[in-house]
């Protein structure tokens, strides 16, 4: 069953995917830091979605759809317009190439990301491990 993007159900599905992915656990075993994934509105999408993930040494301690961006002060922020995020979730573009071409932006401790690039890749793989439906 497809899960509505941006919903708490979607956050729960992602948490489950992270918890069951051996590849993610291995790649992120030294990862320390929580993340906001922020989907910004664009011409084809009027909503702004924020997903909060608390990731720690290969575990996902919390995954939550939130509405107030000030609620947390995460170590990382990954953000970009809906169309670009959707292309990643649809596996039409590579997530790291999207970041390298500025389609998706990253803010935070870049030295840690550069030490664990596969953690970011496996995180995205988990996002695409279940079927997502996007709101109109």
């Amino acid at each position, binding site marked *: 069953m497809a899960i509505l993007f941006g919903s708490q159900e979607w956050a729960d599905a992602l948490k489950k995917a992270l918890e069951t992915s051996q590849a993610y656990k291995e790649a992120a075993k030294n990862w320390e830091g929580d993340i906001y994934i922020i989907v910004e509105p664009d011409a084809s999408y009027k909503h702004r979605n924020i997903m909060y993930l608390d990731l720690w040494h290969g575990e996902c301690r919390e995954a939550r759809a939130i509405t107030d961006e000030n609620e947390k002060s995460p170590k990382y922020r990954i953000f970009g317009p809906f169309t670009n995020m959707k292309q990643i979730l649809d596996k039409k573009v590579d997530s790291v190439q999207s970041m390298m071409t500025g389609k998706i932006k990253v803010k935070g401790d870049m030295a840690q990301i*550069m030490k664990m690039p596969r953690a970011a890749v496996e995180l995205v793989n988990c996002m695409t491990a279940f079927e997502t439906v996007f709101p109109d």
Partner: protein
Amino acid sequence: MWYFVVPEVVFGPDALSHLAELKGKSAFIVTDKNIVSLGFVDKVKEQLSQAGIQAAVFDEVEPDPSLQTVQRGVALMNQYGPDLVVAVGGGSVMDAAKAMRVQYERPDIKPEEINPFISDLGLGARCKLVCVATTSGTGAEATFAIVLTDTADQRKLSLINREIVPDIAIVDPELARAMPPQITADTGMDALAHAVEGYTCTWKNDFTDGLCIKAIQFVFQYLPRAVKDGNDMEAREKMHNAGCIAGIGFINALSSMAHAAGHSLGALFHIPHGRAVGLFLPYTIEFIGEVREELWAEIAYAIKLEVPKGKRAATILAQAIRGLAHNINQPLSIKETDIPLDSFNKAMGKLIDNVMADGSLIVSARIPNVAETERFLGYTYEGKSIDF
């Protein structure tokens, strides 16, 4: 959407004379003591002086340069205030120079923080970077990658950003003539690994494919000759070009698993980079295997290898690379590098961690898990073809 980024490449005999055409007031030459003793730095200074450019020399770059070396060089650059940085040497020298140039122009960014996601480095305002290659294979004169060693963490840092590409690459075969056979072989295998991985990684693209294939052909045709006779200038020139062409090819796609494994081994056991990645290359071809069978077959066709019916192109290509390596006295297994088995086994945990954390691994067409990586390394130590 993707980018194809190259420096201005000046190649062929007498390419070094292009330095006399440069505009500037003062140059900071980054090099090592061996290059100074070979007289290459004097030649560079002579050309620069014809352009009215004064030069200072920093000759303290070591193999596998450390962050600390970069900091020392930057401190001197800040005192000298050059508008040109001229790297004269192999991959280590050119990588150190790239990192120094970034920190000279952007002191707010530490070398280890250079990453592909920064889009506004704004390099070039304070100085230009010219890379003069003296080895044939790293391709560093044409790439926007820097490999530095984090001595504290015993791992190599692969730092990438499109803006750090040199402004000019000088590819003059005369400068390669002095390379001893061992370094010729090591760096030549690096060029081969770049080209094969650039052609087969998941980021391969239309703009890099032709370059990678051409470089592979050159390496198979000319590397044995260049190793056998360093004064064979046709072979020297083709290998010098192959190194640069492969560099442009792979950096605009990416290197993959042989580089991840080679970085890991090199950081812990100080095996020269080209020797390490060349050693792993046939094993990674076997490991990736059928996922890229069509591409292995294309490479085999390009170098006129016959793939008998019922045989896999990956197997034939891996055998051919081992044959080439054997001809130029390269090790075919980790055991042949004289790393004792007990030292290797003791380091296994760190070796695996380094492979799994290496940025090159993300574009491998088949990514190993931890257990597969351990098995892969064990096979490679023994010289056993990968069968899983």
